């Protein structure tokens, strides 16, 4: 981040809000909690999920909003991180990892980092192949990739006798994180961890955007032919940014696994991938700050539907939620396609009619 830029102020503000909300939750001065002042809308649970999604969205916005490469399968990398963490902590014995290692406080952290690196390498190799495709075709290839990963997770990685992923039922009893003997739990503590990572990711995203790499990504988005003509190694850069976004999604997945303490494959399927794209579109793709805003907007809309709107109409049950979510999605895309944050004049993410 550059000193004195508007981003610095925005970042200071974001840190302030995160700290204030965290302090409120931790101390509850005079019985005031986040949930109470927001009328039950903002819960610590929602804020943690927002932090986790923000981490994914920063990567996704770099990939889609800046480099112009659409991914409809991002939840796959999110799921890979979550399952890496879940399997290597809960099922360490099956894999022959000594209990002494698997129970050490640093083991989940090590797995988390290792997963991010492995997913990064994996997606770099995949990206090198499929990022040759453009527009619709890339979107569809990533969609196919996402569904394939989902099926592999659901079907026990193809080795049912080990039952590593737990099939449809997933994995439960994933341990909480510790720093030495200090437990990062209850939620009010985990909140600080998640948002520390999320804020660090935002800094990372802003750094990339304001670097020559960010400029090169926008150039690729604008005209791949022109970007290549000045010597930008387009396939390499695309694969790198794809890998970075996948690594961030994997990191978010690990944080999610230790937060929810359980993972099921349906969290990482086709529809969740699309929800990520929706968050990105609503927040404003070509913006790093669009990431947390888009996440919060979508989570709050869902929460409002669940807690407020649906309760007002007696005939309407919780089953209405997908109907209204779908309808809102259509309306927002129809009337507000630019997103919340439009930092500059943008090009459609892929091909005009």
């Amino acid at each position, binding site marked *: 981040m550059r000193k004195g830029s508007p981003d610095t102020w925005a970042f200071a503000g974001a840190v302030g809000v995160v700290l204030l909300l965290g302090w409120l939750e931790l101390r509850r001065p005079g019985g005031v909690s986040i949930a109470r002042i927001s009328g039950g809308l903002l819960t610590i649970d929602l804020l943690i999920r927002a932090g986790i999604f923000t981490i994914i969205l920063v990567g996704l916005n770099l990939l889609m909003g800046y480099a112009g490469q659409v991914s409809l399968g991002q939840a796959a990398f999110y799921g890979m991180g979550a399952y890496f963490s879940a399997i290597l902590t809960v099922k360490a014995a099956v894999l022959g990892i000594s209990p002494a290692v698997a129970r050490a406080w640093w083991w989940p952290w090590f797995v988390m980092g290792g997963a991010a690196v492995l997913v990064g390498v994996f997606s770099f190799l995949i990206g090198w192949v499929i990022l040759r495709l453009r527009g619709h075709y890339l979107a569809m290839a990533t969609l196919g990739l996402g569904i394939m990963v989902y099926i592999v997770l659901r079907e026990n990685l193809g080795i049912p006798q080990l039952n590593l992923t737990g099939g449809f039922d997933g994995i439960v009893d994933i341990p909480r994180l510790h720093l030495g003997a200090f437990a990062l739990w209850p939620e009010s503590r985990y909140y600080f961890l998640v948002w520390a990572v999320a804020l660090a990711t935002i800094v990372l995203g802003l750094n990339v955007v304001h670097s020559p790499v960010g400029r090169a990504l926008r150039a690729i988005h604008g005209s791949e032919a022109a970007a290549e003509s000045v010597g930008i190694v387009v396939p390499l850069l695309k694969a790198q940014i794809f890998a970075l976004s996948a690594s961030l999604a994997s990191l978010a997945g690990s944080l999610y696994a230790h937060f929810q303490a359980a993972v099921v494959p349906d969290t990482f399927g086709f529809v969740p991938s699309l929800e990520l794209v929706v968050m990105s*579109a609503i927040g404003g793709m070509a913006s790093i700050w669009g990431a947390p805003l888009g996440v919060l907007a979508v989570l709050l809309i869902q929460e409002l539907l669940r807690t407020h709107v649906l309760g007002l109409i007696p005939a309407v049950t919780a089953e209405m939620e*997908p109907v*209204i979510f779908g309808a809102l999605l259509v309306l927002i895309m*129809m009337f507000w396609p630019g997103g919340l944050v439009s930092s500059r004049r943008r090009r459609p993410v892929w*091909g005009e009619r």
Partner: protein
Amino acid sequence: MSEQGLQTTTGDRGILLRPTRASLQRFGRQAALVAVIVLVGLFLVGMGHRVGYGAADYLQLLVDGLQIGAVYALVALGFVVVYRVTGVINFAQGAFVMLGPMLTITLFGSLSGSPVFRLVVSALGAVLFVAAVGMAIHRLTLHPARKASALTRIIITVGVYISVQGIALIAWGPRPYVLPAFTTLQMVDRLVEVGSIIIQAQTFWIWGVAVAMLVLLALFFERTVVGKAMRACAVNRIAAQLMGIRVDRMATLAFGLAAVLGAVAGIVLSPATRPTYDMGLELGLKGFVAAIMGGLVSFPGAVVGGIALGILESLWGGVTLAGFKDLFAFLMLILSLLFWPQGILAGKGEGGS
């Protein structure tokens, strides 16, 4: 052909494949296609051999594949019609596939009279209703958003799908339904034994209806003024507009046509399966894969793509873990995009349409 025209053929529909020497590339791509299909076929047959499959088993898998393949072909045609006329990949196509049988079942239950009469009337009524739904969806959502980017418009169709599936969940609940078999007009279908293989009587209905739909579709495009106008839009929207064709009306009509194709596919398949509110997701995605295998713009390609996908998937399903059956379609999706983006019928390397 102008110099500029030659230029654009290489960037055909946004595909970037590093051109090697043109003739080699053309030959190479065709060779790759043949090699992949032969290899996949040999691999599957070899795998089957290991688990003790004989000729009869393969024939059975082939027939099963042709059954579902005909359905994929119809769904794929719906994708192609809409894509060619409007440039949108319509993920709501799966909704049509689900609405067709669900509405038929509801109508069937509410009518009185002879079973044949009830079946015919309810099926026709359902198809007409779904066609109206398809056209309404275009008019209400995609037509107003026609200037938006392709990604925005695709997200809109996803939103529509989520909503419609949500409504279906409320209307019909999560349980599977039953549509009587067309031959017996009962829950239990007649089984036809041909040599050592067994074919459901409904399978012949599926093939018959699929062929009939193809003939009707061909007649519509070849013989009717509306059909010819729609074809003109598919070839060149701007030129069609200049010739006085109301392109937006043709787009609405294309949605109606796609809805008919989807609904019919869902209805004829239903006696052989158990329709549920969420059946559209899988059939929609697989129909889409079939359309991509056919090149997304070619009607014959979609048919061949659907049948090829059906057969290969069935062979694959015979030798793999039950849960991995769905993996195949998405593997084919990525392979098709990478190796023969123009579709399996396109002999031309670069360019071509």
